[in-house]
């Protein structure tokens, strides 16, 4: 895998930036558009999603309220149900439509309790990476049934990307694979399953952790690289929403 020095990305080894770029190009997705817009918008929509869910649950308490919400928003009731079933994702702007028009409530309504920002962000990141996996990564490999992405999987993949020799892992599944790289990867796996201060030396427990780590990398490493590749400037993309420069 060729290091991609054209698209520097925080938190991503150059080789994994190359993985992300190759994936996008193989899927016919414009690289610049991806870095400028696509991932950012998905992430911002993802932040609204758990808040919209709160409103949907609020309306679900009474069927007549739910019907009224659909009527006021000129929505097919089935649309609300599809949002609730996660079969479709509402756009972020629907939050205010449901709140002000559908429920006719205030933002600080005492009866509506919203998620904390930390929870909303975790939820948004996980849903964004899942969407990337579903839409951008491409066909799954043989016999692949991806486990649901969770916080622990994301931590494993992030730890992998932070390892100083993570770039060699990207070479392992390219034409430039070198036998020594595989030994390096074995060491990295040992690092990923090591818990400082843990006193247990149960091989079965280590094997369980190892399989979890390998599955996390297999199913989510490329999607994670695309996620980070799509947020090249870190939080500055949020600041530009307010037309201010990061300092």
């Amino acid at each position, binding site marked *: 895998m060729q290091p991609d020095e054209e698209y520097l990305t925080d938190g991503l080894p150059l080789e994994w930036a190359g993985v992300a770029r190759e994936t996008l190009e193989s899927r016919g997705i414009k690289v610049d558009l991806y870095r400028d817009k696509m991932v950012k918008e998905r992430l911002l929509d993802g932040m609204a999603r758990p808040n919209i869910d709160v409103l949907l649950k609020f309306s679900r308490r009474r069927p007549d309220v739910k019907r009224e919400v659909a009527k006021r928003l000129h929505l097919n009731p089935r649309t609300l149900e599809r949002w609730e079933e996660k079969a479709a994702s509402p756009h972020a702007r629907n939050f205010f439509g449901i709140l002000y028009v559908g429920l006719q409530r205030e933002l600080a309504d005492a009866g509506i309790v919203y998620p904390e920002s930390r929870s909303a962000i975790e939820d948004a990141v996980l849903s964004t990476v899942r969407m990337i996996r579903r839409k951008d990564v491409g066909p799954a490999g043989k016999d692949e049934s991806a486990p649901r992405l969770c916080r622990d999987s994301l931590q494993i993949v992030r730890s992998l990307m932070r390892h100083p020799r993570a770039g060699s892992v990207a070479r392992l*599944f390219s034409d430039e694979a070198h036998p020594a790289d595989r030994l390096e990867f074995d060491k990295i796996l040992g690092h990923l399953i090591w818990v400082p201060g843990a006193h247990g030396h149960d091989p079965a427990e280590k094997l369980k952790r190892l399989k979890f*780590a390998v599955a996390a990398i297999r199913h989510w490493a490329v999607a994670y690289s695309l996620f980070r590749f799509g947020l090249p400037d870190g*939080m500055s993309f949020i600041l530009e929403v307010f037309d201010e420069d990061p300092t």
Partner: protein
Amino acid sequence: MKTPHERLGDFLASYSEEDLAAIAQKAAEPGYVPEPVELRDDPDPLGRDWDWLGASDDQADTISIDEVNRTPTRPLLDGRRIAWASGVAASIAAVAAGTWFALYRGPLRERDVAAWVAQRLEIGGGGVRVAAPAGDEEVESPLIAAIDRPRDAAAPSTPNVYAPLRIQEQLVVPEVTPSEATAHSASRPVRSITDIARPGDLFYLEFTTASTPTPGTAVVASARGDSWHLLRDEISVAPAEGTGYFGPIKMGDVEASYFVVLADRTGTPLLNTASEALSKNGGGAVSPDVFRDLMAAALESSGHSWFAVQRIEVKPAKDAGAAPKPAR
């Protein structure tokens, strides 16, 4: 032409069960420590030092798979970044304080809570304030100023740490053998502290909300001998608040046990769930552990994802005229 994702899958599929077992075996060897490496710098793209992922940069090389240990660590945060990201999240997603109806609930998990008696009400120029005697020299320190707690624990990192000193002495973390540790995590006894109050005095139950992963509510059950009651209020709690107060409660002539129960919100009020749990006992004596088990069963059936419970035994001060002494 295969995509990178497919090629990665093919490569990892080349690891046989034996290959993985060999790596695991090596990692399980006594004294095994992976080769020290300097992890690459990885700023949080959301500017929050990865608090949403439950890891700070200092601790991100610690991999936690065990569900039991998923309590987020408290990173050292950059205030500006927090303010920005929090403000942005609030603006975009209309985040306000309150309860998160978790989207992906797992099994019910028990969390720690530290609860104690805020013993004294003092009348001052601004009205009545809650005050408590400190554990050591800092007598008469106002409770709300948290003088008898660590000064840097405004948002307590663990329930024990933020408790007043006299309570921390009762909540010293016990040592257990490695073999006990596994069994202990599954069925440890309900934590209990003893405090005192003068008969006739008003007091509050003060408790930490540090270990609560999401906003929720709190209720209190009281026991005097075999007689169990629920206090009628159900109050909101949130991790960001740090501490919560329940009361006022009037101290009687005999000792009473108060069980502070915290849990996340569901469609069923926590008070109803607690009432249901106690009614299943059919009256009579209930040990703290049985009470916890009854609560856990009722909470699980109501769809809760976490709860915390602690007992406070409040004993009447023997000398009703003297100032209350710290419980030891």
